């Protein structure tokens, strides 16, 4: 379906967000704001060890405390709940099983071993400190290399080794290309462990209705319906016995997708005790035990000709997945491998993906689960330029896909179309004035600063339709569901299976409905996050909100408009085939007469009144009411693209990286609401820069988490982040409703690549390369010192 976006009246308007009023006046409603009279408060007792056998859990002292209702351990919970079995039919992936609480051994620092319930949270905390757990500590494995060593201690006793997943792939003949190559360029990329750190931590309130045998779970979740299915399955309830209600969410970034063990414990206890139970994790728990992400090491080997053209590319990625599999372990790294070649013309390609279990918090998808992709690819291009003494801009041009190449099938079979990487790249090059920066770098610089320019071109996989899951061997669906209901008064309600976690869905999704139906955005209200109200959809993940959610709503609203016009035609005494000469615009039925649209006497309200209150007046075959529902499965993938450019100054004395300028040329197709899209671009770049420069989850050799406060796990503040210049480009998708594509994750991908490439451009005269993040002052200063020592060993030798 193609739509001329020029004709849109609602889609594309920069409307302010509807959520803002309640959030700006203190009337937001987050989980912890929901008062449930008599609810008990839960606190978890957690492992202080990275790896240990549980010998005994003594709860006597805790139970003696006034106000304590109970202390529950794995023995209790595992009898009341079913374990999580992950055994999708994926070659090279070991099946795993996780109980609700561990009974035999703990696998990471923060692993929950018991849950204390009390009448208030202070008492529950006191009691948790009185639970005495005796452990026999075990040797911990705290990085992927140690985990994969022969005879390494096993993280999961049920598995033969810690290598929980391994896949490989080859297209063309990369080994042959290596033999023919002018040069073979090798590069390494170490991405460190990070965590989502939403400002609102996890939490939930569970209410059990014994009379109806029904569980209501108030929980901030990105995926209400799949979570309901998980809860019902783990508790042995029917999906008709569970309602998931998601209120306002204080950020998710991928952390609020899985059903975590703590949440399942709360649900099980509320049912067992027939009393409401609530849990709010504290920040220490969130940083230590919620979900981590990103830790992986990549190696590339590029076979190139004299001009830097890539003849063949070989790629290895090894991910440290932590102790538990809440997702199939191949989930994130394999997508990196599948889309690595991105905007570049590479035919001969091979990859190997390895995922290791370690004694750390389990990993999951975090905004741009494939974040490292563009750093690895554009970092490899820069490595080629360095080794061959070529201009990095020219090496990009030599390899970049041109407009004539599309649709382009990547070596892994993924198809790119309706993207514009060469255009965004040239726009970024033009905007930064490369030669001016080269002149600055060439000038004698005695102010103790090194200047660097980095580019990173991103091809961002978004939406993830069902066919992608199928071809990637991942169980799951990418479809979405919506309903649009015009009420008897003409008011428009709509719903979709998404759940926003702060993006601001309520306005752009209302714009999609308004556009499809022919009303104003103010006339539409979109309801989300309640499983009894919303249709079963797959929720919010993988930048699917706009295409899957907005697209389904738009199509559903168009279907509703068709229904309205069919009724209008009958009321106006027209032939039912004459709906093509009718349209709904701004709540009025209009008719085309002599190539001009003219108002009829009918409004949406008139049609609605007929549909609901005078159904005998409806044409034959048209059912009473105006209630339209539909599902839609988007294309396997939609791709957005962007080029990021970053200029940094490194203070040589301290190693501090200062971002002088940051710009991005971005093409994400039809934009539902530019206010929201710009906010998503800014937020994604900020998260990428914060992660690349400052954030780091640190474990010591025994598996102790050393970074469980915001004084240790450093998020970028307003003083460290620049303003972002954004150049908009627009290539609508021809495969989706209204030309929509996804976005909101590519900013992370581009940021970590652009800033690191800029740092390496600055360091190039010293002959050192930063191949790991974070780009902390200590790390950068260490690289500079090593270069100084090499150059002048006597002066710096001590």
């Amino acid at each position: 379906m193609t739509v001329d976006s020029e004709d849109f009246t609602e889609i594309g308007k920069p409307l302010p967000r509807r959520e803002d009023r309640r959030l700006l006046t203190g009337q937001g409603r987050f989980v912890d704001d929901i008062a449930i009279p008599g609810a008990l408060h839960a606190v978890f007792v957690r492992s202080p060890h990275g790896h240990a056998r549980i010998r005994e859990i003594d709860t006597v002292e805790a139970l003696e405390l006034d106000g304590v209702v109970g202390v529950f351990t794995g023995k209790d919970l595992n009898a009341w709940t079913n374990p999580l079995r992950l055994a999708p039919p994926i070659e090279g992936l070991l099946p795993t099983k996780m109980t609700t609480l561990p009974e035999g051994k703990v696998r990471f620092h923060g692993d929950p071993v018991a849950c204390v319930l009390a009448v208030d949270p202070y008492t529950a905390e006191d009691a948790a400190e009185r639970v005495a757990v005796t452990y026999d500590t075990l040797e911990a494995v705290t990085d992927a290399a140690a985990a994969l060593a022969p005879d390494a201690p096993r993280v999961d006793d049920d598995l033969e080794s810690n290598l929980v997943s391994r896949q490989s792939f080859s297209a063309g003949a990369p080994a042959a290309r290596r033999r023919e190559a002018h040069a073979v360029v090798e590069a390494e990329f170490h991405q460190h462990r990070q965590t989502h750190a939403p400002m609102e931590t996890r939490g939930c309130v569970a209410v059990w209705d014994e009379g109806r045998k029904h569980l209501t779970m108030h929980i901030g979740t990105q995926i209400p319906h799949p979570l309901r299915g998980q809860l019902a399955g783990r508790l042995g309830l029917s999906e008709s016995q569970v309602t998931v209600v998601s209120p306002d969410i204080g950020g998710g970034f991928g952390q609020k997708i899985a059903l975590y063990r703590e949440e399942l414990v709360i649900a099980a206890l509320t049912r067992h005790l027939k009393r409401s139970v609530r849990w709010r994790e504290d920040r220490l728990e969130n940083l230590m035990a919620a979900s981590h992400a990103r830790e992986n090491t990549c190696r590339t080997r590029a076979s190139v000709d004299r001009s830097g053209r890539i003849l063949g590319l070989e790629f290895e990625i090894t991910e440290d997945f932590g102790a538990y599999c809440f997702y199939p372990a191949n989930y994130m790294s394999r997508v990196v491998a599948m889309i690595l070649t991105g905007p570049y013309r590479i035919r001969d390609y091979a990859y190997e993906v390895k995922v290791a279990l370690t004694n750390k918090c389990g990993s999951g998808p975090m905004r741009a689960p494939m974040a490292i992709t563009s750093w690895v690819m554009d970092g490899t291009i820069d490595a080629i330029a360095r080794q061959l003494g070529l201009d990095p801009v020219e090496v990009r041009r030599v390899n970049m896909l041109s407009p004539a190449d599309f649709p382009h099938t990547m070596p892994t079979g993924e198809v790119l179309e309706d993207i514009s990487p060469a255009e965004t790249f040239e726009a970024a090059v033009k905007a930064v004035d490369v030669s001016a920066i080269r002149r600055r770098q060439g000038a004698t610089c005695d102010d103790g600063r090194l200047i660097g320019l980095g580019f990173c071109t991103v091809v961002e996989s978004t939406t993830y339709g069902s066919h992608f899951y199928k071809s990637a061997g991942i169980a799951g669906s990418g479809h979405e569901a919506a309903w649009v209901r015009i009420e008897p008064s003409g008011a428009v309600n709509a719903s979709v299976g998404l759940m926003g976690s702060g993006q601001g869905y309520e306005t752009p999704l209302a714009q999609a409905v308004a556009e499809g139906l022919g009303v104003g955005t103010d006339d539409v209200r979109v309801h989300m996050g309640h499983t009894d109200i919303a249709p079963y959809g797959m929720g919010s993940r993988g930048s699917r909100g706009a295409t899957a959610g907005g697209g389904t709503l738009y199509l559903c609203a168009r279907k509703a408009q068709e229904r309205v016009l069919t009724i209008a035609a009958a009321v106006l005494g027209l032939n039912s085939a004459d709906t093509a000469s009718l349209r709904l615009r701004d709540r009025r039925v209009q008719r085309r007469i002599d190539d001009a649209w003219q108002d009829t006497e009918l409004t949406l309200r008139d049609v609605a009144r007929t549909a609901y209150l005078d159904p005998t007046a409806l044409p034959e075959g048209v059912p009473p009411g105006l209630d339209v529902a539909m599902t839609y499965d988007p294309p396997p993938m939609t791709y957005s693209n962007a080029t990021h450019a970053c200029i940094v100054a490194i203070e040589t004395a301290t190693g501090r990286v200062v971002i002088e300028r940051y710009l991005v040329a971005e093409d994400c197709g039809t934009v539902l609401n530019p206010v929201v899209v710009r906010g998503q671009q800014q937020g994604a770049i900020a998260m990428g820069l914060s992660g690349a420069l400052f954030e780091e989850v640190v474990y010591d050799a025994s598996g102790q988490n050393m970074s469980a406060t915001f004084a240790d796990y450093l998020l970028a503040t307003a003083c460290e982040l620049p303003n972002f210049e954004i150049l908009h480009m627009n290539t609508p998708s021809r495969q989706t409703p209204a030309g929509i594509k996804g976005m909101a994750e590519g900013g992370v991908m581009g940021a970590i690549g652009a800033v690191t490439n800029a740092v390496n451009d600055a360091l190039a005269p010293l002959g050192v390369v930063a191949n790991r993040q974070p780009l902390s002052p200590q790390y950068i200063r260490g690289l500079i010192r090593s270069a100084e020592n090499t150059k002048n060993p006597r002066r710096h030798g001590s």
Partner: protein
Amino acid sequence: MDSRHDIELSVNGDTHRISVQARRLLSDALREDCGLTGTHVGCEHGVCGACTVLIDGRPARACLTYAMQMEGHEITTIEGLGGTDGYSPLQQAMQDEHGLQCGFCTPGILVTFEAYLRDNPDPTEDEIRDVLSGNLCRCTGYENIVAAVKKAAAGMRGEPE
């Protein structure tokens, strides 16, 4: 630890008579005993700034303050900002400039700058960023918050947009 104390909390001009343990945090007392859930708790160790309230007009962390310490002091929370007709200039500017996304950190930012702009009506961008560095935001990248504060300041000085 168990003994309770009857105290009066003066919040946004209203008096709340509540009974608290000595260790009860001001943030918990505001949210649970006074029913003012607009003050959010993001870290409970004084770094993130989400729980910031005004104590006698000065910004302070409600998660690092005991409720009992607040007798005889005037507390202002997010619910106390803005007039009866709606937004304060800063709230309006935050909406206009898209200065919030999930909105969890927003109350702390608003009360911080309501106080700051009263004393510093014409701040530079660097000064705004320096003050804002006491509040963590995971969604916005801060740029639009800075723009909102600038816009609110200009409006409060009576300058045209």
